[in-house]
């Protein structure tokens, strides 16, 4: 492989690891527990900002051209861990507002509003994370130990794959029985789950915070690779790339999510990059988003459970329990119905 090709491959592999951490985290919330987190990107972004701030050192570094709070020089793995923790802490009040008490679709719209609002705040408050300009010159971790940049690129691939592996064990640990069984019960029917003695609000909150921490880790791994992060890096639409990956790959199972990542953010976006440029510059980028929307609708209609459907979980007595479709309650209309 030529070194140029190697750089390209390493970039794809880092992208793959970053996206897979995020998608596994979102699938834990959306696919397994049924939390409609349309503001997922907030937590990846919080992690990215934190991962940057914890390596940039004090504000006065680099001539003090960027303003942010809480600068530090944390040694390598700790900067990423700390970013995950910060994202988890941010998730607590947000989860309390948006997740633990609201109905599914209402949850979705509240999270969407919060995601847009978070970008507005990052833009308006220039002293928190340097406003519209964003943070740049984020140092690459451990770079001083390697001489060639190609060598370092492969080292970074290895590092990000280690983080992805870690995310795999965390998500698998959470989704394994009996905790995972409780989460799936909540997804299938919240009222049935709470009737069985499951504390629905508390479980959802836990999953929300764990997912946010993983999202934070993915953001930190990403920013330390990219070197910069700003309000344009996390438009609320970015969340839907992750959602499309889950819907295409298959909800509620890690293999499906992995396939979705390989197909949507990686293969799909890389392939469309090679399409001939039509119209003005940027037109193919908007057409790409149109295609993502179409992809989502096509899969929702023809293969709502994705390319790799979640395994049917059967009861030892032989009776099929899980995975019926969520009931449509014809009579509940919006606001004013009296049955709860």
């Amino acid at each position, binding site marked *: 492989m030529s070194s140029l090709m190697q750089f390209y491959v390493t970039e794809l592999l880092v992208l793959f690891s970053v996206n897979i951490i995020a998608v596994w985290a979102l699938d834990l919330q959306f696919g397994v527990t*049924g939390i*409609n987190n*349309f503001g997922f990107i907030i937590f990846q972004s919080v992690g990215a900002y934190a991962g940057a701030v914890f390596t940039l050192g004090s504000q006065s570094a680099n001539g003090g051209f960027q303003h942010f709070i809480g600068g530090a020089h944390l040694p390598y793995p700790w900067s990423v861990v700390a970013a995950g923790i910060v994202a988890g802490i941010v998730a607590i009040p947000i989860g*309390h*507002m*948006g997740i633990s*008490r*609201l*109905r*599914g*679709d*209402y*949850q*979705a*719209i*509240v999270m*969407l*509003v919060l995601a*847009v*609002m978070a970008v*507005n705040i990052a*833009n*308006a408050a220039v002293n928190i994370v340097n406003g519209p300009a964003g943070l740049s010159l984020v140092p690459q971790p451990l770079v001083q130990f390697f001489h060639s940049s190609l060598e370092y690129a492969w080292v970074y691939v290895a590092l990000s794959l280690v983080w992805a592996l870690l995310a795999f064990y965390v998500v698998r640990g959470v989704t394994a029985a009996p905790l995972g069984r409780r989460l799936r019960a909540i997804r299938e029917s*919240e*009222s049935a789950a709470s009737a069985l003695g499951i504390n*629905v609000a508390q479980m959802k909150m836990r999953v929300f915070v764990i997912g946010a921490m993983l999202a934070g880790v993915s953001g930190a791994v990403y920013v330390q690779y990219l070197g910069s992060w700003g309000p344009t890096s996390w438009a609320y*639409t970015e969340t*839907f790339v992750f*959602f499309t990956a889950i*819907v295409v790959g298959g909800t509620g199972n890690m293999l499906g999510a992995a396939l979705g990542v390989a197909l949507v953010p990686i293969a799909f976006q890389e392939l469309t990059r090679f399409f001939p440029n039509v*119209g003005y510059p*940027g*037109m193919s980028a*908007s*057409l790409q*988003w*149109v295609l*993502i*929307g*179409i992809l*989502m*609708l096509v899969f*929702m*209609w023809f293969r*709502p459970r994705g390319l790799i459907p979640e395994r049917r979980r059967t009861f030892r007595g032989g009776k099929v329990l899980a995975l019926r*479709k*969520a*009931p*449509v309650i*014809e*009579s*509940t*209309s*919006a*606001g*004013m*119905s*009296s*049955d*709860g």
Partner: protein
Amino acid sequence: MQVAITIFAFGILTAALLSIGAVGFTLQFGVTNVLNLAFGALMTSAIFILYETQRAHIPLWIGVALAAVWGSLSSLVLSVGLINPFVRRGTSLFSMAVVTVAAGLIIEFSLEAIQGPQILGFSTQTPEVGFLGIVMSELQLEIIGLAVILMVAIHVGLRYTRLGLKMRATAADAALARSCGVSARKVRLVAWAVSGALCGIGGALIGLTVGSFNSTTGNEFFIILVAAAIIGGVGQPYGAMIGALVIGMVSEGAAYLVSPAYNYIIAFGVLIVVLLFRPQGLFAEYSSGRTLTQ
């Protein structure tokens, strides 16, 4: 005192702009039970319609009417062609959110692909009127007037007509309404059409007032009017009107007293307080609070 009057006047203007879309959105959700996240993209498309009519030198208010017709038709197409088939198939409420988001992405980025990234603008010049020490343009006063007319029309329509009664019945309990001889299907179609028209007018007027727009303008304002609808209690038309007033006053107040950069952020602060202490919204009845919050 002068500051208070200025804040009040422009707060009313913002509220008027937001209330049209917010009432449309909340009515749609109340009657059809679908949270339509493509609403913002449809608002943008209405701005484009108004822009095209202005380029063709069609009188402004006919252009707004055309935007309303467009909003109504596209919203009907969206419901009949996309949303209803998914609902009939039994797609869960929360998957419906994903479906409407996908539809919104398709509309928004198709507009961007057609129009390109440049920002378009309206060049509407109307004489200015000064009163009580403040200056507003005639257009702004007309917009406030139109919003008031629309709100009164919705109030009268919901309270005093048979159709309004059927709509409220369907919103309250579709099964019960059906067993009383209300065709919930027809009522829902009417709701899609009416709310679509409000979406078209609201979008077009927002574009006209802001002056410049691109393919994301509708969604930017959609978020704010959703905030207004949530403050009032989603599904509650009167709540949406009050929510729009709250957001209008708070954001204009913040713009004058704190900084224009913070106007909507502080208005969102109100939303957060509401979500923390009364997640079902200020004006929701207790029962509706139970369906929205578990």
